[in-house]
């Protein structure tokens, strides 16, 4: 049983991929050559969704969906593996080659206790393996999850679930770790904890391949960065170099799309008078000492907020803290447990609008966008020309309205949602994580469209986001929610 508890074996091996091509039918999804990962130095592949970066990672792991074919080879030290052979690398899984999956909360079996799920990753695991369970407890303890062992996954927060998944993936002592989009749905604190784990892995001489669209995380981990676009690598080099002084146009666009680097005419960062309400402007929404609990958890307590015409508010905080609920309470879509929410007279007639995180869910699912918008146009007596003008402004042709919401991409649909929200000439728009599902570039474009429009009609903004950089780029007032004890 000493075998089970052995420490991760470290080698001086490096992983090299002379050539890797992934295809779906005749369509090439990834085509990459001369990829090298050295011990102690991370390789990060950045790019937008559909660039082929995740597909490449799964091709190396040997976990591509069966519809996809891989060509090429990879070597771990002296041993060579054919990428087309899926089965050939299975014996490495967990021992040599580990994968930290996307969305860790889905990667944990909902019906099994956490300790069991970590333990079964141990080398040579068999049922009722006491040594493996001990090792699992040790690892969980090491990651600050000592009490989580007997818990079921649904009770864990996103960050905890990710550390559990990390423990389960690495307990077998693999020296090569592939991390796939680790920042999805994580707040800054949880992301920093993960980054430290990855640092440790590298410090012990491990190999790390990270796939991400999050440039801040890529910068934080360092090492080598490869930028992928449309199945090929456009640029690669040391992280600081590539991410601060990019050589390729596309990389420059990516870097500029980071909210921290934004620069738009509607931004008024400098002019904002951050304190004190301007006396002449009436409040559109005023809430006094509102509180809300969910089950036996307090989301917020004694919150006071007054939103005046033209103001830009951001509610920030870690995921699951109740930001969206607070926004909904302010719009009176959800009732508060205590306190009052007052809307100014004249806001009743559709002058408070909302943009949703998933625009696909905010349109009737089974009718064309045209039909869905027709009732809005009739209600507010909007001529068709104005809808077409608005569509042109957001860069869409009117013919897109013939389609159903499921036949339109998320970015396009969110722009149509913006058009819809503008039709009643709103006084306040509540944007609930409205761009969090979009790529950086289309997030930038969508926010620009939205804010220019709001600026033009003088509409106030209430924005909910987990992204503090975006909050400070857009809003002039912030309300930060913390986890309540």
């Amino acid at each position, binding site marked *: 049983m000493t075998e089970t508890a052995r420490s991760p074996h470290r080698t001086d091996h490096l992983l090299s991929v002379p050539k890797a091509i992934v295809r779906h039918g005749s369509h090439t999804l990834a085509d990459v050559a001369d990829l090298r990962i050295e011990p102690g130095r991370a390789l990060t592949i950045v790019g937008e969704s559909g660039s082929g970066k995740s597909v490449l990672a799964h091709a190396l*792991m040997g*976990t591509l969906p069966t519809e996809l074919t891989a060509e090429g080879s990879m070597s771990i030290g002296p041993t060579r593996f054919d990428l087309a052979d899926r089965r050939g690398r*299975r014996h490495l*899984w*967990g*021992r040599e080659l*580990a*994968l930290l*999956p*996307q*969305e860790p909360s*889905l*990667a*944990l*079996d*909902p*019906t*099994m206790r956490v300790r069991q799920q970590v333990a*079964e*990753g141990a*080398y040579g*695991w068999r*049922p009722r393996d006491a040594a493996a369970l001990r090792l699992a407890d040790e690892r969980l303890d090491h990651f600050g999850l000592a009490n989580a062992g007997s818990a*079921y996954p*649904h009770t864990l927060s996103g960050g905890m679930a990710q550390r559990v*998944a990390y423990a*389960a*993936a690495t307990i*077998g002592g693999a020296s090569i770790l592939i991390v796939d989009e680790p920042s999805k749905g994580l707040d800054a604190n949880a992301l920093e904890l993960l980054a430290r784990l990855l640092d440790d892995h590298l410090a012990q001489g491990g190999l790390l391949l990270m796939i991400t669209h999050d440039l801040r995380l890529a910068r934080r981990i360092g090492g080598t960065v490869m930028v992928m676009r449309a199945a090929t690598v456009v640029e690669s080099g040391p992280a600081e170099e590539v991410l601060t002084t990019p050589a390729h146009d596309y990389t420059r666009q990516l870097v500029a799309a980071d909210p921290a680097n934004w620069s738009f005419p509607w931004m008024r960062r400098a002019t904002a008078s951050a304190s004190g309400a301007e006396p002449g402007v009436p409040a559109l929404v005023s809430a006094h000492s509102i509180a809300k609990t969910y089950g036996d958890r307090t989301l917020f307590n004694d919150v006071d907020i007054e939103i005046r015409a033209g103001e830009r508010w951001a509610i920030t905080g870690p995921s699951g803290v109740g930001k969206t609920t607070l926004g909904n309470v302010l719009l009176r879509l959800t009732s508060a447990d205590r306190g009052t929410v007052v809307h100014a007279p004249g806001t009743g007639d559709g002058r408070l609008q909302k943009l949703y995180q998933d625009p696909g869910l905010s349109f009737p699912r089974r009718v064309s966008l045209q039909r869905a918008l027709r009732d809005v146009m009739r209600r507010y007596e909007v001529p068709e020309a104005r809808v077409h003008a608005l569509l042109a402004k957001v860069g869409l042709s009117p013919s897109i309205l013939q389609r159903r919401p499921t036949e339109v991409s998320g970015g396009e649909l969110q722009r149509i949602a913006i058009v819809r929200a503008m039709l009643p000439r709103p006084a306040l728009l509540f944007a609930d994580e409205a761009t969090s599902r979009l790529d950086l570039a289309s997030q930038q474009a969508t926010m620009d469209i939205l804010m220019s429009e709001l600026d033009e009609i003088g509409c106030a903004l209430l924005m909910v986001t987990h992204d503090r950089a975006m909050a400070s780029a857009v809003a002039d007032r912030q309300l930060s929610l913390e986890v309540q004890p």
Partner: protein
Amino acid sequence: MRSRRTGLAVVLARRSAQGLGVAVLVSLLCFLVVRRLPGDAAYRIAAGRYGYDLVDQEAADAVRDELGLDRPAWQQLGSWLADALQLDFGRSLVTSRPVLDEVGYYLVGTLQLAAASLALAILLGGAVGVLAARRPGGVLDRIATGWVAGVRAVPPFLLGLLLVVVFSAQLGLLPAVGHGSASSIVLPALTLGVSLSGLIARVTRDAVVEVGQSDYVRFAHTKGLAERWVLLRHVVRNAAVVLVPYLGVQAVILIEGVVVVESLFAWQGLGHALVHAVFWRDVPVLQATALALALLIVTINTLVDLAVLWLDPRPRRLEAPA
């Protein structure tokens, strides 16, 4: 663990309320039957009791008298429901034996048949479903789809008739009707088991395919867990979480099938007794057997709820089907 205990309390409370509702509804329907019992039905009951040759108007009136049709309706309904809730059903109008005794006897037969059919259906449907799930869209999957549709299109009574023709009349292998020997359960159980296996096969197939493509099963693989442990520790349990609630839905179809198959094969069970009671307007037996069958469904669903509670720790809105 606290959540599981409250879950248990919720299940038991909800199912007890359902059982009570069912009892009231069935009793109400039976009460209406009695209220509307036409003269010739009383005559028929009397005939059933004393034989057609000996029956006269007096005997028929005695039957009507026994059912207490001269009191005001609300009083009758009140005492009717009170009697039903105390399990006091009186005596059979046809055999004059206590109804509770008769129901007890028939219940055993029904439980035997139901258990045998359900076991057969789970074995057959589970096997077909798992085989089909190995390659979605493959040859086996298509054959299984055909099987499911075919089974759905043939009502149990027809299937039973076909089995009788093949095994009993043509091959002479098995007894067609009766309740005596051990082999007499084979045809009824086969009929019902095959009928039920269709839906089970489909649900099993879909569940196994879905679980097999889930993130946690893929992660279990890349953790380095051997194939058979992935199957036993992750796939089976999570597929069961999907499949078990469907067994609750099947309970209604199972009991419906029991009534038909028992009549077809003259199997001494509640369904057989119920059909006879309807035919003879034997209201006490009618009420008791209908109640027993409906409560059997509630019982099966309670067991299903408890199994789900044990299998799946996630909190849920207890809105399980059926």
